[in-house]
């Protein structure tokens, strides 16, 4: 990489994590939530998403490229830190460590999830309620999916907190404390939405 470009890569990394990847995450979890209204509802919603015009471009530029840039650059960031929770057991230091741990786990989960659904769809499989029902019938996969969704929502919510710091929006300790509570709320709400959708397939 060119010299003195790190700052811009880091800013791009922070931005893409929220726009578009974070927005897509929220949208995805909300569409999944149709599953709680029964198979028909979910299949209809999935059908609408599948039938969006210019779908492949939307997928490439709004999902895959930003997601994998964020993920791979994030792995680089995660492995250039030296965690020290024993010396500094503070809340923020734990969040710092968890952000990196959930980032790596989310990358594994999302990659597996894309392989199991989107890539299989490209190979001719039908993505519908039955597909998810079959995947989640395995208790190991059910646990993996729940862990994956919670890891993703945590990474997003806590990432939103540091996004606000990185972009200079929350400066004072007070505003950063309030945004901690706000993002904690986002984590809880998105986790409930995500887990309810998963359990609807069981």
């Amino acid at each position: 990489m060119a010299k003195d470009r790190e700052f811009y890569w880091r800013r791009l990394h922070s931005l893409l994590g929220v726009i578009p990847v974070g927005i897509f995450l929220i949208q995805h979890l909300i569409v999944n939530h149709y599953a709680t209204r029964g198979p028909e509802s979910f299949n209809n919603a999935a059908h609408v998403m599948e039938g969006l015009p210019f779908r492949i471009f939307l997928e490439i530029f709004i999902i895959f490229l930003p997601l994998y840039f964020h993920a791979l650059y994030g792995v680089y960031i995660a492995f250039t830190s030296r965690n020290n929770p024993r010396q500094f057991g503070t809340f923020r230091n734990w969040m710092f460590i968890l952000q990196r741990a959930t980032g790596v786990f989310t990358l594994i989960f999302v990659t597996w999830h894309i392989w199991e659904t989107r890539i299989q769809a490209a190979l001719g499989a039908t993505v519908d309620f039955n597909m998810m029902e079959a995947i989640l019938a395995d208790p190991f996969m059910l646990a993996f999916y729940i862990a994956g969704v919670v890891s993703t929502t945590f990474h997003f919510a806590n990432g939103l907190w540091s996004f606000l710091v990185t972009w200079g929006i929350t400066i004072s300790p007070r505003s950063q404390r309030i945004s901690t509570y706000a993002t904690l709320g986002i984590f809880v709400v998105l986790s409930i939405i995500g887990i309810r959708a998963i359990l609807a397939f069981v």
Partner: protein
Amino acid sequence: MTASSTMTEEKTIRFEIYRQDDLDSTPYFEEFEIPYRANMNVISALMEIRRNPFNKKGEKTTPVAWDMGCLEEVCGACSMVINGTPRQSCTALVDQLEQPIRLEPMKTFPVVRDLMVDRSRMFDSLKKVKAWIPIDGTYDLGPGPRMPEKRRQWAYELSKCMTCGVCLEACPNVNSKSNFIGPAPLSQVRLFNAHPTGAMNKNERLNALMGDGGLGDCGNSQNCVQACPKGIPLTTSIAALNRDTNLQMFRNFFGSDSEV
């Protein structure tokens, strides 16, 4: 005086001290036990070991090397890791520490010998981010703009930084795998940019902060603000500089007709 009060059992202080003979040699721990005196700090204990360099086993050893200066927590030279926490050894009072007291150098920096480290990288970073106010010229420019008293009081807090290195030792992103300059020099940019004369060159400092190893490498673990012995609001400085550098980034990228 009764016999019982003079014959009290002799109290001692136990130490486990990191020893390293030079930059490249293998480190090891050596134990020491010295007689107790009231109101000792870690430095007076190290002076006692220097006066009588015998380890706990009674073997003669080399005196422990450490760095010190002011002895009143304003110079930053005597920083070391005491029972796992980076801090100044002059204000580390023996009576308040759990024994054995474990002394280690701040290994984020190159270890010169024993507890002595080379903090030059911090001074290099201050040069990199132009942490000064240029006033030299060919003629007397007269007094600069006045600084509001409230801002002066606030800036005084930032000026308490003594380049001690504790925040770099505490930061998970300052290590051999990264070239992050650490929190201290970042906050100094905020100090000099807040000065009415310093503000005349604030774009130069912000652009320096946007270089490799600069502000972008902060990961918001916020250990620095916990560790800072001077209570400098380092994370507030970092967030404020995030705002400033973002604006500077837009100015640079989209162009602007005013530089500062």
